[in-house]
């Protein structure tokens, strides 16, 4: 493998990792606030990806409106999921395992809705949604789709950091993720905080769904890529969205290098083995605190 090839694989890995980061951060927001792994996030991602697909293929909208539609759809579906599936369990102070089981069920339900509407075959975004496909820098070829994904990821992540650090609702979400009861005693409406968390998470899921759909293809099972978000959130650790994002990018890079060296057959085996080994050595993840509360 020469230097150019290594650079090309790094670009491939970063591009893949950028989308994983969007998925993982959206996933981790709910993990942080409600302390359970919300696999319904995959369903939100899937519905948003198809919403963007309809916007582009039926209404010929351009890239930015398509991403915005995906974002808004993600936010709406995420809040609906919260109302339909999680709110009641939360009010009943149900165990974490109920949230977990319900989130998996919601993922299946949202997938089946997509099967009913779009069938089980695959679809692709219009190829001319992004006019220029790649740019060459020397011998390197960079996919514009992934470059845009990377840029959108950076912008979305920047906005997320701003919201969490500088806005009242962001600070409230962080407070709630630290200790929901104390936050409530401080007079903060935790119900609204949770909805806000689902909105932000859904928006991230919407963007990642559209970008993942554009860079690959669409099928009702597209939401199962949320597993990458789960892995990254475990590796990144609770309490640090930056840790999760770094873990997601690292995951993308590791995957690409494993596929290019040992092949796609062994790659998932090594990834999961690395995950287990990592958790044995550093159970709190890259940058987080204990993960023992995670369902």
């Amino acid at each position, binding site marked *: 493998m020469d230097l*150019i090839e290594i650079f090309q694989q790094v670009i491939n890995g970063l591009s*893949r990792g950028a989308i994983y980061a969007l998925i993982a951060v959206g996933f981790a927001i709910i993990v942080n606030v409600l302390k359970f792994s919300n696999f319904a996030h995959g369903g939100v991602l899937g519905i948003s990806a198809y919403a963007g697909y309809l916007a582009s293929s039926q209404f010929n909208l351009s890239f930015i409106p398509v991403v915005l539609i995906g974002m808004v759809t993600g936010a709406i579906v995420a809040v609906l999921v919260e109302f339909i599936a999680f709110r*009641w*369990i939360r009010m009943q102070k149900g165990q974490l395992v109920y949230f977990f089981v319900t989130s998996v*069920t919601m993922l299946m339900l949202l997938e*089946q809705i997509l099967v009913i509407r779009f069938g089980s*075959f695959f679809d692709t975004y219009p190829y001319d949604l992004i006019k220029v496909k790649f740019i060459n820098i020397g011998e390197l070829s960079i996919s*514009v*789709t992934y470059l845009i994904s990377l840029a959108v990821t950076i912008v979305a992540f920047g906005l997320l950091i701003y919201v969490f650090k500088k806005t009242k609702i962001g600070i409230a979400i962080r407070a709630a993720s630290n200790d929901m009861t104390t936050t409530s005693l401080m007079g903060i409406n935790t119900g609204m905080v949770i909805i806000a968390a689902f909105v932000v998470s859904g928006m991230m899921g919407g963007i990642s769904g559209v970008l993942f759909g554009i860079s690959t293809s669409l099928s009702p099972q597209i939401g199962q890529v949320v597993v990458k978000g789960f892995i990254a959130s475990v590796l990144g650790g609770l309490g640090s969205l930056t840790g999760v994002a770094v873990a997601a990018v690292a995951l993308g890079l590791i995957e690409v290098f494993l596929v290019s060296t040992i092949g796609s057959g062994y790659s998932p085996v090594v990834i999961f083995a690395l995950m287990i080994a990592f958790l044995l050595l550093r159970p709190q993840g890259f940058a987080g605190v204990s993960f023992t509360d995670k369902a």
Partner: protein
Amino acid sequence: MKKLSILIIFVMISALLLSACAEKEPEVVQEETETEDVVAEKEPEVIKIGNLQDESGPMAALSGAVTLAAEMRIEEVNAAGGINGRMLELITHDTRGDVNEAINALTRMVVQDDVQVVLGPPVSNIGIAIAPISEELQVPIVGLFMEDRCTIREPGTPWSYMFLAQNSASRQGESIAAYAVQELGLTKFATLVNTANSYSVGLAEPFKALVRANGGEVVAEETYNWEDKDFRAQLTNIKGTDAEALFFPGYPPEIPLILAQAYELGLDVVMLGNNSVAPTGFAPTTDPAATANTFYPYGIDSSDPSVSDWAAKYEARWETKPLAQSFSGDDAIGIILQAIEACGDDVTSACITEKLNTMGEFEGLQGTFALDPTTHQPIGLPMAIFTITDGAPVFLEWYTPDGPVN
């Protein structure tokens, strides 16, 4: 807590119900044209033909094309009075693309529905799985499962009840390899294969063997799995070699992605595909620029008037364009009907199997061919080699592993 449990059960039941709604009806029964007032005992018994297809799984589009072709053929035959005065009934069971589901469905249609012959799916993984089951059930299956293991038990001995109605994967792989070596003058190849798909592997191995036998070289062998959608790591590896061509046998969901990603990476090699390129390679959502310099083998020459007439009829009937599996599906059901007709009044699995084993020439959309009794595969069918120009398929010539057909 009780209410909570009820809520969870409600959500799960909703998911299951929606899941059930998503599935197509397990049985699609071809309506007969006879009116109900015809007394049953006066009417000759209908001939039941099983149709084992992926109606709701990942290969639904291809399997669906087989079903539509079969339904159209049966409608025509029934409208003309049936076979030997008996109406035909197509009984479709959904495999959902799952091997276990396919085995259960096959057993159900034979044991419960009492079908005497089965139209099989265009999915090799399922073909391999049902081959030993067909021995147990002693029911002939004529299908489009192209991998050799679907029809050949061991060299020289076929599975007794498995019959292939189009060229095998090995013949397809060898034909495109021969074309690439002999007509395009290529010597260095890379392969990108789905190792979990027996069809993909079944195309790649004969391809590589023929390339090597002709003095060519396979300089890179990359692999992927079902769930993969990003092939850039493998394609970058291939770009780093001196390969002149990439052979990427696979199913429709992967093919446009491989073409598009190879194009985006600037992988400037000849792209060699399989017959699944056809429904996707020039699909409206694939960039025509990404399909330039692509060659693939196909079962029919779509510019042939008899084929294009049939295609027009199909499109008028179903309001959708035929896929490769539509044409070969029509041939598969045609072979079944020819065997049924030859059986006369003795329409049993045993008789149909015997007639398939001793079948003479069959004149179908793919050409005129017989089935080899040692392989249960078509004898002598050439492959139509196509390229894609400005997003549209262009027929080049008929080819076999031995060279061009004049």
